């Protein structure tokens, strides 16, 4: 299975894929923004403030998804001793962190007209802030430590410890009384959000996922070249 994770094969794929993903991202984002800002209806309670949902919710979903992948690849690097898993998790982290920040900032902007406050120490907001701190620690660790073996251990521990926070974020609205409403979109049961809002939300989520894929591909190529640069030094 791991023959597919050989760096030269992956480098070719990631180099070619970048331009296609960028093109697809621009197309999907344009459609998503038109739907989110113009075509989708206003909410009967929140009026047009509901449109912030189309950037806030996908950003939160993707930052959670990326952190989950980060933890899985970290476990993978421990179990299989595959260095590519380390490079993959390192390349995923920057976009996850940015999406986490976007979720926090747009949530704060959305909070003012709907709750009357920019910030509240609500269970979901606080747990999202903790996730941002884990992302921050993960990225900082790569900058601070120079010993490769040590930094891999530290960052893997941060990712594995931090992933405990992911189900807390997901179920915080059920476990505690929070300002956030309970989940409106369920894969296994009925979704309470109307289709006219679900479509733009889906398109924006796809656009955000494509952007995180694009950043991942670019970052992964950068990491591979760094490895090869060190290889040239050793020649």
């Amino acid at each position, binding site marked *: 299975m791991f023959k597919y994770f050989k*760096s*030269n094969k992956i*480098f*070719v794929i990631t*180099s070619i894929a970048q331009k296609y993903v960028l093109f697809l991202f621009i197309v999907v984002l344009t459609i998503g*923004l038109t739907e*989110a*800002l*113009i075509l989708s209806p*206003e909410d009967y309670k929140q*009026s*047009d*403030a509901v*449109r*912030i949902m189309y*950037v*806030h919710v996908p*950003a939160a979903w993707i930052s959670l998804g990326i952190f989950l992948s980060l933890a899985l690849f970290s476990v993978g690097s421990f179990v299989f001793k595959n260095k590519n898993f380390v490079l993959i998790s390192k390349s995923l982290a*920057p*976009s996850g962190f*940015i999406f986490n*920040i*976007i979720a926090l*900032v*747009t949530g704060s*902007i*959305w909070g*003012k*007209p709907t709750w009357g406050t920019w910030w509240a120490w609500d269970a979901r907001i606080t747990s999202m802030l903790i996730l941002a701190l884990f992302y921050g620690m993960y990225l900082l660790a790569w900058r601070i430590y120079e010993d490769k073996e040590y930094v891999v251990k530290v960052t893997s521990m941060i990712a594995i410890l931090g992933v405990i926070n992911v189900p807390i974020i997901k179920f915080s609205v059920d476990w505690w009384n929070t300002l956030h409403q309970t989940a409106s979109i369920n894969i296994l049961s009925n979704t309470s959000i109307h289709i006219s809002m679900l479509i733009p939300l889906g398109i924006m989520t796809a656009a955000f996922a494509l*952007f995180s894929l*694009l*950043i991942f591909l*670019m*970052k992964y*190529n*950068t990491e*591979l*070249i*760094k490895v*090869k*640069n060190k*290889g*040239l*030094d050793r*020649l």
Partner: protein
Amino acid sequence: MINEIISMNGYGAYVWTAFSFTLMSFATLYFVTKLQLLKEQKRFASKFGSLTLEKARTARSQNINKEILSNTSNI
């Protein structure tokens, strides 16, 4: 029509700020990542150029090095 889109029933400042922040974050992350990639590609090309003939031949035997060089030439 345009005024309605801009004002968003009085929520325009919130909606447009949220969307602008998101798009600016995207643009910043994209350009920072692109710059890092270009910097590493240039570093690789200059290191490769300073190799002796024999070392360059050894380095060129690895497929990935050829790929990096071919991408660098497109910069």
